[in-house]
């Protein structure tokens, strides 16, 4: 399957989920399990994606300058820096690491 196919299918799925919220009965919100599952999925996915982008390389774990990016971004977030600054700090940290000869 081409990448275009999955881009469009993913976009359609995202819209279908948004739309379904307006069409489903509102009583569903009274079931705490629905909200919990959504919260759990969101935090779980974002944590996994963070780790994967930090140490993942294909099917192996590689420790390199991306760890510096993680640390620097965490400090920036802790200092309440705006999102775009956090992203830039991550890029600069990894870039500096490589400049210093780290993998």
């Amino acid at each position, binding site marked *: 399957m081409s990448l275009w196919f999955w881009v469009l299918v993913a976009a359609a799925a995202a819209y279908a989920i948004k739309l379904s919220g307006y069409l489903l009965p509102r009583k569903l919100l009274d079931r705490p399990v629905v909200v919990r599952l959504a919260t759990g999925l969101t935090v*779980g996915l974002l944590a996994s994606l963070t780790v994967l982008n930090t140490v993942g390389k294909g099917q192996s774990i590689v420790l390199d300058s991306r760890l510096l990016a993680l640390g620097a971004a965490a400090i920036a977030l802790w200092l309440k820096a705006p999102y775009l600054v956090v992203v830039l700090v991550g890029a600069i940290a990894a870039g500096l690491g490589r400049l210093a000869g780290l993998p």
Partner: protein
Amino acid sequence: MTARLTPATRMGLSIAAAVGVYGVSFGALSTGSGLSVLQTCALSLLMFTGGSQFAFIGVIGGGGTGAAAWAAATLLGVRNGVYALSLKTLIEPPGRLVPLMAQLTIDESTATATAQTERDERVRGFWTAGIGIYILWNASTLVGALAGDAIGDPRRWGLDGAAVAAFLGLLWPRLQGRDPVALAIVSALVTVMVLPMVPPGIPVLVAAGATALWWTWQQRRAVRP
């Protein structure tokens, strides 16, 4: 212009201004992950939910398949359904507006609407934030995509470090309290454990699935005596 700025529209505009420019980082990372400029812009125009868009390109950039990227993006979009459900209760939108409202139902427009106390203000807050972000997000995505395309290899300029920071930045505001932190740690550990065992893209799904089930089960047990 005679329209006065109400607290809701003011909040919506400032959130739009602050959030809309993130599209630059999405655009740059997306082309760095191997998507074309056109595919990158299609994601912002059609998918229009930042977390899922980042998830999609994150899986592709890590060598995952299109199907795995679809699954990660879709699971991350589930929360939008919950937002829609609560907005429907709060605003009770007329049916003809629902298709448009649905597309603009994201973290920020929901937050702006629910922060208001009156229905009219909620409506104004939702539309101001939603439309404002839609315009800025798409414009800045294009700028970022063109810039990322010009840079080439994502490892130069530390663009892979930018991806790490981008995901941590999305996760960070949700880590309030002990439970979400425990949840994040469990997910991180599961990811590292399954990473060498399954094809790229799948660890995210395994980790998220395991975490969500564990969390729901934990909560359920806590409620019962």
